[in-house]
């Protein structure tokens, strides 16, 4: 990975992961600890990102928020891949009937804008962080499947696949041994796109009050809470938003760098 932007992205992402994993060690205060004497305290040495309406340290809450965001991102993206990749493989290689059927379903699915679909799912399942994860995963599954299918269609005409077929390898073997590894590159790059989408969707839902529930501080819900005091405490909305921004920023740099490194070209997804 030689691109400087990629390095910046990777560093930002590492900072995020360190925060999420090491919250207990790094955060200056427990995220729920109140300081009644320091209500809406502006950023200072004691509280670098200021405090909220209960005197809780915004920095600590932002760090804890990384745990929530990265958690949702990892689990929902993982789930989308676990379901989406096999579906894409089957659709691309198991014959026209399966393909037609699967693609119909996927197209119908994709008619829902991501955020609207996530909203609808959370509306059905009920608000909460767990349901948000499920919703994000469901939103991203068909996108993953479609990407993988496209890759399969491209790869199955490649010479080495034709050769394997001529040598009498089974469909299953060709798919798993020859085609699947070929799709990995683009899947990895695509995963970075899904990951940033997961973060945006989770924070949007939390912002609307449908995602993470208090007292758990998610970046999205912190921004929403901050708007109650935006004429007194700009920092309440500013820092969590900055955290989302930098994370998405980092993911897109890392994605670009991965794309260059793996020499993958993605269609419009």
């Amino acid at each position: 990975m030689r691109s400087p932007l990629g390095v910046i992205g990777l560093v930002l992402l590492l900072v995020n992961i360190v925060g999420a994993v090491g919250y207990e060690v790094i955060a200056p205060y427990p995220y729920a600890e109140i300081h009644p004497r320091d209500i809406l305290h502006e950023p200072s040495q004691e509280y670098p990102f200021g405090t909220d309406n209960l005197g809780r340290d915004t920095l600590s809450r932002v760090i804890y928020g990384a745990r929530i965001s990265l958690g949702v991102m990892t689990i929902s993206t993982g789930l989308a891949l676990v379901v989406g990749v096999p579906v894409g493989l089957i659709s691309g290689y198991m014959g026209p009937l399966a393909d037609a059927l699967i693609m119909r379903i996927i197209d119908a699915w994709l008619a829902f804008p991501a955020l609207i679909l996530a909203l609808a799912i959370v509306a059905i399942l009920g608000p909460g962080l767990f349901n948000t994860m499920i919703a994000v995963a469901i939103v991203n599954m068909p996108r993953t499947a479609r990407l993988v299918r496209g890759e399969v269609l491209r790869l199955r005409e490649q010479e080495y696949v034709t050769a394997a077929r001529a040598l009498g390898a089974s469909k299953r073997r060709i798919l798993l041994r020859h085609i699947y590894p070929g799709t990995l590159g683009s899947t990895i790059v695509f995963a970075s796109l899904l990951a940033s989408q997961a973060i945006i969707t989770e924070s949007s839902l939390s912002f609307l009050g449908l995602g993470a529930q208090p007292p758990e501080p998610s970046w999205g819900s912190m921004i929403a809470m901050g708007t109650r005091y935006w004429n007194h405490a700009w920092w309440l909305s500013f820092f969590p938003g900055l955290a989302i921004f930098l994370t998405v920023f980092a993911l897109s740099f890392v994605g670009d760098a991965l794309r260059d490194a793996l020499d993958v070209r993605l269609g419009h997804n």
Partner: protein
Amino acid sequence: MKPRKLLLLLAALLLALAVLPGVNAQGGRSDETITVATDLEPNSLDPLFGDAIGGPDRYTYNLMYETLIRLEQDGSLTPMLAESYEVSEDGTMLTFTLREGVTFHDGTPFNAEAAAFNLNRALDPEVNAPRGADLTVIESVEATDEMTLVITLANPSATIFTNLATEAGMMISPTAWQTLGEDYGRNPVGTGPFRFVEWRSGDRLIVERFEDYWRMDAAGVPLPYLAGVTMRFISDPAVKLVELQTGNVALTDAINPIDFEIVEDDPDLQLILVPSGIHQWMTFNVTQPPFDDVTLRRAILHAIDRQLLSDVITFGTGEVTPTIVPSFWWVYEPELEDYDYDPEQARQLLAEAGYPDGIDVTMSIIQREPDTQIAELLQATLAEFNINIEIEVLERQAWIDKVLAYDYEMAMLRAGVPRPDPDFLFGTVFGRGAANNWSGGQNEELFGIIDEAATVRDRDARRELYVRAQEIILADAFYGFLFFRPVAFPASDALQNFTMDVDGGWRLGEVWLSE
């Protein structure tokens, strides 16, 4: 102004309103239209489908609707659509003489038949109106002649006049109801100072002066002074304040207490204290362990620093009172023995109740502010006593289902106080068969006192009863009373002669704007 003075001012305001009946407006008719803002949009403009008594729907309803009588801050009744009334010896028959020459906005005349139609509509099970419940004491309604309405009650009631002065007693045009049916709620027709023009849902409601309105001011100038009112629905308190500061809006409902001072310091704005506010409290589920044990309940109450809660949440504008009754309500009694913050005693009682090492409890709350903040504060402060609170945040519906099924341990409550009549609070929460018996506690002695208080008409005697009720409520410790937070409306300094209902409902019919 020091925030603490707010409460004093509030008391002074109430006194002033009681002493100065009908301040004469210096304004005259103006062709001005004002824009006001509130955070909650009504579900329906049919008053029978309004939210709880004294809820924000009243701001809108008061523009278009009137009642037979109006309840004033000092407890007196002003004749409105009724010129006078009589109560029979046994207290079960009320005879109203109605005002001549009043018409609805659609030209339908207002008479005894129309009034009877309205009250019967409220009681009609087919209509299934939520506010109908406020009139269930009525047995029958009859128009004995063109302008005489006779209401027969099932039993004497201390609250019927107050109830008739709220949503359930607002008069709508029978013609409109009959022709519009299901669409009535979006095309309201009343007798009030303003007539309905347009409701852009999610955004605003527009009304204009009703030219044939019956009321005049003392100088004979026909009301209302304003040419129209636009009611905007803005939920963000900070945005409401900006709209006010920029002059887009002349009056709004509650804003954050933290902003009270900004309004006070702005020469173009005034802060209008509302005669009612919110009491924040909590309930224990006393129907099962662990909180069926009064010692444990008392231990927890002694562990709560109510002054700290009040100061943090209300930015010093709140007050801590022994019970749910705020200091300026006529049933208030300062000498009641309540639970002060006493860590020593809390620990001792906790040990006595069998929890020397602390206890884990769950507190169910509704997702709204400041309830979540209060719960988080309690969680943080009670942790010192090893009282570990797990906060369960629910949506309102789920919360009600859970709490009224007594499937909870502790829960957070709020109540608008004072209410037009104490029975509206005591009867619905602490009384026999109360719809909102959150704690599940049963105390026959308390029920008896509250039943009695609802029928007695002498105010001093009633006060005695309600004070005694509060003593029992405190001794039972079914509930924890945390603090009262006042509500204040910021308004443009030009807004003149603004008055409110007992529970804070706006009366814009008499308002005018100064230069």
